[in-house]
């Protein structure tokens, strides 16, 4: 009995340690894929795959998971504000385009075209964003 309790305690401690580690690892994979030009932010408020890039099954799963969580986030905040989820997603895209696309990263503009932010070419903001 005592031994079981000790084992349970150890398992709980391991789980507590493992949870933040996996979360951080997930961010790192996505961050690397963004920096490497495999994926990018889109004007619709979601992550997308850059055409021609080789996407591993692991990366595809992480991007899909990220987008599913984003969709839930948009939907719940949209319901609170009495707007559509698409409108909330568009508002987030404006903020993302302004503050979350680093130099060298690729992004997909409003018309569906993929572009790259460079030292000389700043991010082209979607037309629906407040200037």
């Amino acid at each position, binding site marked *: 009995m005592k031994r079981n309790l000790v084992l349970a305690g150890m398992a709980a401690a391991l789980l507590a340690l493992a949870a933040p580690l996996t979360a951080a690892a997930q961010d790192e994979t996505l961050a690397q894929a963004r920096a490497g030009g495999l994926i990018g932010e889109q004007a619709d408020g979601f992550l997308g795959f850059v055409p021609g890039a080789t996407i591993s099954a692991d990366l595809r799963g992480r991007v899909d998971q990220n987008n599913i969580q984003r969709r839930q986030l948009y939907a719940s905040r949209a319901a609170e504000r009495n707007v559509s989820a698409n409108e909330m997603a568009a508002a*987030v895209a404006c903020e993302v385009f302004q503050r979350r696309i680093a130099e060298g990263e690729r992004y997909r503009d409003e018309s569906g075209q993929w572009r790259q932010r460079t030292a000389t070419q700043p991010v082209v903001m979607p037309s629906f964003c407040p200037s």
Partner: protein
Amino acid sequence: MSKRAHLLTGLGAVIAAAGCIPVQIQAPDEPIEINLNVNIHQEVIVRLERDAAELLDQHSDLFGEANP
């Protein structure tokens, strides 16, 4: 004309009347709506600006960290 024929004519008149009346009543009441979707859309985005910024700050796991 047989009784049945009279009945059918009557029915036809009733159906025709039923079909016409709602149209006659509704037509003047219907307001003319002008679609201003483009402007409304941008206004909504402006209104949601603070919410969007908040979501970004609270969910760096989904949106990454702010650019340096």
